């Protein structure tokens, strides 16, 4: 249920960025979430719809780009990606593997309609 607090952070960030660019209405938020970040997409959209009412993000759509976990085998050097469970090296079968990425959780970009007249 930490998605509620996480979603509030997301909304605050988007509103702040939107204001910087004089957005009248933010229509789309593009998020990147790594396989190893413990975040549930569905609940974020649900909370976002509720929290964003009355803000410049009202009715904005959230787009989630899930990125896989990246691993590297320490024995044979094979680099590989995983969408599901963490497993041993698919090349040599070795268990001496290291996670090298997949923790991403950031706002990549926002799409918005701009105010009619933008101050110089």
């Amino acid at each position, binding site marked *: *249920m*930490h998605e509620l*607090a*996480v979603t509030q*952070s*997301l909304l*605050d*960030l988007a509103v702040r*960025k939107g204001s910087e*660019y004089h*957005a009248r209405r933010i*229509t789309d938020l593009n*998020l990147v979430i790594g396989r*190893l*970040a*413990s*975040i549930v997409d569905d609940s974020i959209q649900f909370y976002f719809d509720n929290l964003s009412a009355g803000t410049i993000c009202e009715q904005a759509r959230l787009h989630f780009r899930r990125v896989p*976990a990246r*691993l590297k085998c320490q024995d044979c050097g094979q680099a590989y990606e995983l969408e599901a*469970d*963490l497993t041993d090296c698919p090349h040599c079968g070795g*268990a*001496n*593997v*290291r*996670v090298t990425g*997949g*923790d991403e*959780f*950031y*706002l*990549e*970009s*926002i*799409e*918005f*309609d*701009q105010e009619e007249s933008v101050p110089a």
Partner: protein
Amino acid sequence: MTTVTVVERIMSANDRLAEQNRARLDAAGVFAINLLASPGAGKTSLILRTISALAPSLRIGVVEGDTASVTIDADKVSAAGSPAVQINTGGECHLDAVMLAGALPQLPLPALDLLIVENVGNLVCTAAFQLGTHANVLIASIPEGDDKPYKYPAIYRGLDAVVLNKMDLKPYVDFDLAYFQRGVEMLNPGLALFPVSCRNGEGMPAWLDWLQGRVKRGHA
């Protein structure tokens, strides 16, 4: 329609507050750990064992994160002679930097060497919120099972040490230590691991040495 690139961590506001907590702790010369675990793994038992072994030569304070205003844990710590502050999260499943910022002024920070922040018992939500402490320590316990690193990778990624509790139950539970260790190594190579029993004290010296070393070394 305009698109602009943002590329900013969604937790950046919390992270900035965590940095302020860190600065406050550093200014007072306090080393702080964020103690994480699932419910019942032995957080309070480890805190009490640690206080009884290291106090008063180390001056230890405790912040107790609880989801309700039940002061059982804080009372035990106070009874052990250490200042304790309770944070009632009001049902929230984790502590965050704002909650810790509210607790710090209630502690005699300049009179402390070590602050132990007992987070809410939870392996998912707590991983997302930096508090500003200097080290994240997880207590796992063997009855929980040896597959936890594989199931809760996010929390293991951010750790500085794992205490593996309830080793006295080894004869009674199926726990493959090698499998557990392999998962830990996969996610966090070289992570310090301390098998202990808070019940009979087995393994405690290695954990206490590590902790004292980190407190002495300061805020690495």
